[in-house]
């Protein structure tokens, strides 16, 4: 059974949505920290902004769930289609020399996955109220994507790769 079809009640859907957004926000914070440590302040700031938006969305969902007793789900029991939540950036894609352009491309790919997650539920959930709310969330993810596209247009890919004269793998 697809994940979307398993979303048969509002509490389960909200528990998944909160986890998706909070995990994405925490990961963006973690990535910002990585870039701070490796003296890449511009990309650190980008990830920090992305964390801020994920957190806003998480708060909105938390507000929706006020008064509900959301089920507690172990991280490995979510059964995401990807190894982590759909909006969570893959640490393996990070590089200390990455540019804002690259960071935004990764963020866009994560937002697309999140959009697809909500869109599938808006189409396939057996519960009408869940389908409606998932549709709203899918639209919001679409707005985020549009925002990122604008942002990306202002951050063209650098013409040349960044050169590090003292890379960490330089043999001693």
């Amino acid at each position, binding site marked *: 059974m697809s994940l979307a079809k398993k979303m048969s009640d509002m509490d389960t859907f909200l528990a998944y949505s909160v986890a998706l957004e909070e995990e994405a926000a925490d990961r963006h914070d973690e990535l910002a920290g990585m870039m701070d440590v490796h003296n890449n302040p511009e990309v650190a700031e980008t990830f920090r902004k992305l964390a801020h938006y994920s957190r806003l969305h998480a708060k909105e969902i938390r507000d929706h769930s006020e008064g509900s007793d959301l089920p507690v789900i172990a991280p490995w029991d979510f059964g995401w289609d990807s190894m982590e939540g759909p909006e969570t950036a893959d640490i393996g894609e990070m590089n200390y020399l990455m540019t804002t352009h690259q960071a935004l491309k990764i963020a866009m790919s994560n937002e697309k996955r999140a959009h697809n997650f909500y869109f599938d539920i808006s189409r396939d959930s057996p519960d009408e109220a869940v389908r409606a709310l998932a549709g709203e969330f899918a639209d919001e993810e679409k707005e985020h994507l549009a925002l990122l596209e604008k942002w990306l247009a202002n951050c063209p890919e650098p013409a040349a790769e960044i050169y590090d004269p003292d890379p*960490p793998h330089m043999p001693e």
Partner: protein
Amino acid sequence: MDQSAATLPLKPKDYKSALKPVWCPGCGDFAVLNAITKALAFMELPREQVALITGIGCSSRIAAYTGVYGFHGVHGRALALASGLKAARPDMKVLVAGGDGDGLSIGGNHFIHACRRNMDLTYIIMDNEVYGMTKGQASPTTAPDWTASKLTPQGSGVRPFQPAGLALTAGASFIARGFTGDPNGLAKMLVAAMEHQGFSFVQVLSPCPTFRPEQMQWKHHVRALDAETTNNPIEAAQRIQADDGMSTGIIFQNRYPVFRPGTGVDAGMGSIESEFLI
């Protein structure tokens, strides 16, 4: 340390410290940190009831990045330190972590005896098949034909250890292999390891993006073990030998007597101090 009883249940990030890891972006060790914190949060362990003891190396920095008690020890001696702590404080959950060089070369002797002693410890080896902190030399798990290091331009020519096989031979009662590309699966595995009574060993395939960038392709090769966990060491040995080291899961689990030394310390501080020679 803050008493956390009043703030339970804690979230995974509550088990992290305020320090930002200095690992290279892309390093698998970030996922190990996340898996440990997820496992601790799932088990609802108060921070003051957990200690993480580490050796030396990139991965051994992990003790500083958690909010539980930690000790960043000497090279290869994490298991000795952890055994001492567990003997003195059997009520604590004691985790031990380090890299393949720390645990299997410098600390190799401690490792095999920790396996056979079977104290209630969970040992995580973050295996990237290289010494990263010292800029990329062959470790005990490096393939013999790896030529990227200037120290071994023709490759080391030495066959690598199989950590799981070594642990089995030395008598470990819980042996698992995880992968940082699946942090949630790894967290589940760590919960099983921590719940196991006795010495639990978890080898984690943790790619090094800097000195072993080719390991970033491991995600295309790692797969789930195609067999249930066995308690039969002969079956486990056959599986380990037949495998290419890329299968993940709990390979072996059995109940062996757990070594629980009595503390035996009944002397007061005064009498202990009187024995000191200054």
